[in-house]
Structures are given as C-alpha cells and as structure tokens.
C-alpha cells in the first residue's frame, strides 16, 4: 500500500493551500513535503537538467507562497494546478535556452514513453488519464506520437519537424488536427 505524504498527514492539498493563502508557513511546508517530489519529476522530465529543474521548482513554490490566494477551484484540483504551473514554468525555461542546446531534448523525447502508473496517483486522476489515453489512441499514430512527444519532451514545432524529418507545415497541421480530434473525443 502506498500513500502520498498528503494522505499520510491527513491534509488534502486543497486544505493546505487554503491555509497557505492565509500565510500559514506550516501548511506551506506540509504542501511542499506532499507535492515537491511529483513536481520535481515534472521539472526533470521537461528540462533533463537537475540544476535547472531545482531552480524551476524553487520558482514554483515561491510563486505558490506569494500567490496561493489566486488559485481558483474552477481551474481543477490543486494537484493538477500545481502540475500545470510547474510544467509551464519548465517549458518557459526551456525556451530561454539557445536553440542548439535543445537538441538534447530531441534525443530525450525519443525515450519518452508513457510513464508507468505513479503509485501516488489518485483514483480520479487515473480515470481522467485513462480517458485521455483512450482518446489519444483514437488518433492516427503519427499525430499521436507528435502530441505525446510535444507534451512530455517539451518540443516545439520546429524541433518536432527536425525529429520526424517532415516539413514544418505538415507537422503543424498534424498536431492541430490531432488537438481538434482530441478535444472532440474528450468533450463530445
């Protein structure tokens, strides 16, 4: 039986964040202990560089402390909000790298497969992910792999085009069609 730290401490990320918004440092530390490993995993996956991943994680939590009150439950669960924020910042960081440096990401993307199920996963997140995976399976294989590589490897259109050795316009078109198909499948 594996449990997340949040479960062990009996406080949900939602409860903790609402206390963080009131300036409660203990809640902030508990939230950090409960979520940092997962968010660090996201930083590492996108950036493939520990020092940069650490800096981005620190940025994320600094922002969480200062802007906790801006969280809106309509944006989804706290865990998913934290994950999205983390990934966005990691990709921002990736985009500040010189173009050549991101070539490493091309190779990294090659080894990107669907990660195994995280033991810490909540049942709800897992059913949502099954739905997303099912919709992705309905895509044409090329569109599917482009979207997955873009998501997990943080690749741009240009990088994707280089990687699959296809014209930029075609890659854009495949990804866009894939996104539209995905949207239609997720929200019939």
């Amino acid at each position, binding site marked *: 039986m594996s449990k997340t730290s949040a479960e062990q401490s*009996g406080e949900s990320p939602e409860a903790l964040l609402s206390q963080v918004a009131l300036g409660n440092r203990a809640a902030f*530390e508990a939230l950090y202990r409960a979520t940092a490993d997962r968010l660090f995993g996201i930083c590492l996956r996108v950036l493939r560089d520990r020092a940069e991943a650490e800096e981005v994680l620190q940025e994320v939590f600094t922002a969480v402390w200062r802007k906790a009150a801006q969280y809106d439950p309509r944006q989804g669960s706290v865990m*998913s909000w934290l994950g999205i924020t983390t990934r966005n910042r990691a990709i921002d960081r990736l*985009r500040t790298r010189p173009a050549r440096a991101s070539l490493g990401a091309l190779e990294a993307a090659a080894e990107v497969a669907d990660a195994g199920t*995280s033991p810490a996963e909540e049942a709800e997140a897992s059913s949502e992910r099954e739905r997303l995976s099912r919709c992705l399976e309905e895509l044409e294989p090329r569109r599917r792999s482009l979207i997955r590589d873009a998501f997990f490897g943080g690749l741009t259109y240009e990088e994707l085009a280089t990687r699959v050795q296809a014209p930029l*316009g075609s890659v854009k*078109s495949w990804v866009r069609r894939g996104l*539209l198909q995905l949207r239609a499948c997720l929200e019939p």
Partner: protein
Amino acid sequence: MSARMPPPDEEDSRGSEPPDDDVLAGELALGVLGAHARRAAQMRREQDPAFAAQVGAWERRLAPWLAAVAPARVPDYLWERLCRELGWRPAPAAPSLWSSLVLWRSAAALAAVAAIALWLARPPAPPAPPTAAVPSAPEPAAKPVTTLAHGDGTPGWLASVDRTRGTVLMVPVPAPADSRGRVPELWIIPAGQAPRSLGAVSINKAHTVEVPPDARAALAAPGSVLAITLEPASGIPHAAPSGPVIAKGAITT
C-alpha cells in the same frame, strides 16, 4: 499524402493559416510554440479573458498526463534554499528541545487542564479586543519550553516561546493524523480571557508560529496557556475553538 518541399503545407492548407483561437490555445498549453510565438500567446492570455479560459481548458484536458510522470526525490537542501529565498529563518535544530522532553513531561501541562476545560466549555466568545501592550524592554535570551500534553499526560507538542521575537517554535511528537481530516489549531489563552487562534500546527514537523503583535503580551503574562484543538481545515484561524482539546500546557515563566 506527401512531404514534398515548399509549400510545406501543401497537403493541408490549415498548416499555414493562422489557427483559430482555440487551436492556438491548445498549442500554448501543449507547449509546441517557439519562444517568440509562446511569448506572444502568453501576453494575449494575460490580456484576453476569453482566450485565457480556452488555454485553461486545454491545460486541464492535458493535465491527467502529468500524474503519470514519475516523481523524483527532491534534495533536502532545496527546502532550506526556498526558506532563504522567502526570507525565512531556517527552523532551528530540534535536538535541544527533544532532550528536554523528559524534563518537562506532563507536570506543568496537567496543571492547566482545568483552566482550558473551563474556557472550552463556554459558548464561543468574541475575540478579545486588541490590547496595546507591547513589551517595552525585550527580555534577554530566556526561552522557556512548555509541554503541550495529551489528556493521558503524554506530550503532544513542545513549545518554545521567544518573547523577544513574538514567536513560538512548535515541535510535535509525531502522531497519526485525525481520521476525520481535522487539523490541529493552536490557541493562546491569556488568564481570564478568551482563546485566540495562532493558526494551524503541524503534526510531524517543527515550525515557528508568529504571534500577532496584539497577542504577544500573553506570552509573558502569568497563567497564559497554549492549547491545541482539532478543527476543520477551512477557515483557520477560527474565531473560537469548536473541536476537542487534544493537548495543552501552561506557558512556563
């Protein structure tokens, strides 16, 4: 289907046309835009609520994948670095407090039980009016340790009061979390006055609690008590306790 060279998007004209807003929102969320286009889309997100909502919807569609990313162990020094970044003093080491655990065992705490029970049996009282009392001359180093004991006399928390700074260092004796999801809330109860919340406390980490300036006088006043009750997580700090007392102790003077 062909991948002939220019025009590269020959097989599908949509590849070169500006995408509609929702597709652009999806591209921003997916992260495929290059640095320049990404910045432009992010600026638009900040200024255009409708577009921002579309980006948010795409982020939520893709978010379930994030749960599949394997966690990675964060190095311990990162927490300290984060505290420095936020301008916090790193938490003092706990051992000296732990060693005084035996010394300060339940005696003082038990003495306070009656006082607390009295207060918690009362209907919730409005918060005490702020008192303007501020210690005029900061005391030197004395930092008495108070044991907050459970009903059976076993220690639940150790509290080290720093009157000069107006803080209380709370060191929990690790215990299981409340099965109903309530969280421990710390109260200071000046003799003869209503409890006043000092916020939530951790059940497994030492941390410092800042006492509001108008409640600091109670830290040095004779007969003041620290108590911990189990409360709903939302709404902390509460105006008055509503849950059971799980630990308490008189501040040692």
